């Protein structure tokens, strides 16, 4: 008896619920059916959009994209040093830079004089460039077998780039000086990966702009934390108490700020991870940082590192005097 009653109530309940659901759905459908006219206007919208699209595509074909001269210049300082993968790294970096308008590449070699490899490469690259060189003193240089994080790298070379910029800034007159007022300086290592959007984000920097960097600090990405449009702190897993716990690839400085602060430079003796702070703390406070990349929520640059190629067989051959032709540039 009891069981039958329970089943009955369950059944009745179920029946009413499903009936109500069906009625509700039918009403919904009814509403949509009213929108037949809605559909018509949607079709119109679509054909209108198609027309717009065609018009714009025509416009694109005719407009000159490559000769943009009315945007602020980006000076990219890249320290580099001779190793097997150097030419490959510079090659793929140049492919990215060739897409960026008004980019001036400052390549600073860690060498006593310019090497033919880099000289020839830059001449053939098609980019606007400046080729500098500055040898790192022996005691600051990483030795064979040292882990890459032991000593800060590239400090002397970046400082040399800054010196050249300051020299050029002092000598510039008239239109050129006006162009430099809006220019931006970015430090790009030769093994990182840069998206094209990044350069457009950094182009309009008043003081120092910042954004997230992928694959750095032992994490998927490090980023400045933005609240109410201002940077309040940095989200990083490694030594977050640094003045600026940000990677070299995560900020850009306006040239104006570089020129008006001639004492700002990278400290080659700085502790591990404090290289960026040694430069930025002379220039800007946390409050003044300009967050980019959608208020620091998008990753537009990745701190990739390239493996050192295995040369065991090459080394063995060289011992026998049968190494590969050294005249062939790799």
């Amino acid at each position, binding site marked *: 008896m009891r069981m039958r009653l329970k089943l009955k109530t369950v059944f009745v309940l179920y029946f009413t619920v499903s009936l109500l659901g069906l009625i509700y759905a039918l009403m919904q459908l009814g509403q949509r059916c009213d929108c037949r006219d809605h559909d018509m206007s949607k079709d119109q919208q679509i054909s209108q959009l198609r027309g717009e699209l065609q018009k714009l595509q025509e416009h694109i074909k005719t407009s000159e994209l490559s000769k943009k001269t009315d945007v602020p210049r980006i000076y990219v300082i890249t320290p580099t040093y001779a190793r097997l993968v150097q030419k490959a790294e510079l090659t793929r970096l140049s492919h990215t830079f060739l897409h960026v308008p008004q980019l001036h590449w400052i390549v600073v070699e860690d060498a006593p004089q310019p090497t033919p490899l880099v000289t020839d490469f830059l001449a053939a690259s098609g980019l606007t460039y400046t080729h500098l060189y500055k040898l790192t003193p022996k005691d600051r240089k990483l030795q064979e077998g040292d882990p890459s994080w032991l000593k800060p790298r590239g400090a002397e070379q970046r400082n040399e780039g800054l010196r050249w910029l300051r020299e050029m800034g002092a000598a510039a007159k008239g239109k050129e000086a006006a162009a430099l007022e809006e220019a931006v300086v970015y430090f790009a290592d030769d093994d990182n990966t840069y998206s094209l959007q990044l350069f457009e984000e950094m182009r309009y920097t008043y003081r120092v702009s910042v954004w997230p960097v*992928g694959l750095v600090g032992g994490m998927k990405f490090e980023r400045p934390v933005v609240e109410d449009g201002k940077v309040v702190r940095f989200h990083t897993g490694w030594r977050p108490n640094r003045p600026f716990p940000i990677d070299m690839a995560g900020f850009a400085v306006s040239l104006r700020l570089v020129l008006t602060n001639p004492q700002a430079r990278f400290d080659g003796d700085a502790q591990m991870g404090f290289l960026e702070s040694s430069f930025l703390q002379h220039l800007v406070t946390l409050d003044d940082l300009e967050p980019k990349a959608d208020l620091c929520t998008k990753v537009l640059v990745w701190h990739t590192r390239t493996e050192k190629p295995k040369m065991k067989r090459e080394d063995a051959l060289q011992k026998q005097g049968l190494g590969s032709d050294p005249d*062939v540039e790799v």
Partner: protein
Amino acid sequence: MPKRRDILAIVLIVLPWTLLITVWHQSAIAPLFAIRKVCHHLVKEILIIPERLTIHRQRLADDGTETRHDTGPATDSKEYCSQDKDIVEVVRTEYVYTRPPPWSDVLPTIHVITPTYSRPVQKAELTRLANTFLHVPNLHWILVEDSQRRTPLVTRLLRETGLNYTHLNVETPRNYKLRGDTRDPRIPRGTMQRNLALRWLRETFNSNSSQAGIVYFADDDNTYSLELFEEMRSTRKVSVWPVAFVGGLRYESPKVNAAGKVYGWKTVFDPHRPFAIDMAGFAINLRLILFKPQAYFKLRGVKGGYQESSLLRELVTLSDLEPKAANCTKILVWHTRTEKPVLVNEGKKGFTDPNVEI
């Protein structure tokens, strides 16, 4: 008695649901969704306006005042498609940062086959690869993912590059990925993906079509110079050139005699392979691929280093090879490998926001 009641109960339970389903199917919902999709897609396309146009407009409006320009992110196309709005003036725009060179009717198309798989550096690798490909005219990128279905990351990336592309996917079965016993060694990575691309080419192009094409296998972590693509464009059957950083050497290269013919291989690792060359060291004319529809990379039982030979020996002989790159004396492609990033600070739970794409 109870039996009839049961049947009645079952019928009454099922009836509302069947009604619902049939009505749903017949309704206008399906076409509406289609319209929505098209609308979204078109709005996104239109909002791709070259930077110059918008900056030009902004400059005219600003009168040259020194303000910080908000070079904006993508706009929300939902605004236009969900409501009954007229198309209003576009204020914020999505930028196309560059475009590939215009398509030429004369140049042979280079079909670049790239297998790829998900890992932290994937987006970075594909980004810089795309930046290189955007300089090459008449390039068709066939990107094959090693996944069960096409991932949104790659789909979005491909669309945003503006390249001419085909997006495929095939998942390498789990047991093939792991190391098996000696009789059944694992499939070299990317084999199934490359074979799928070859099959797609054979299904898409028929041998009678006049479409000149070259097929090149490009891994997503190597580095390619622009000169390489122009060298391979003149391939008649199979062309070869040196590759840096393979086989434990500075570079491996084919041996070319005075008559300009390949007669051997300058490698240390098994130079007696039929084709002792890396995947990045050769390109095949599309006609040859179509002419020999049975030629694929061998899946199983391939010794290390013999994968390239498994395909090439079905297509061509040593004497047919065309040496490029100044008779194989210049390095135009480097077999670089990217370090696996150290992600210790993510910890077990993950320190960073998983919704942010890297």
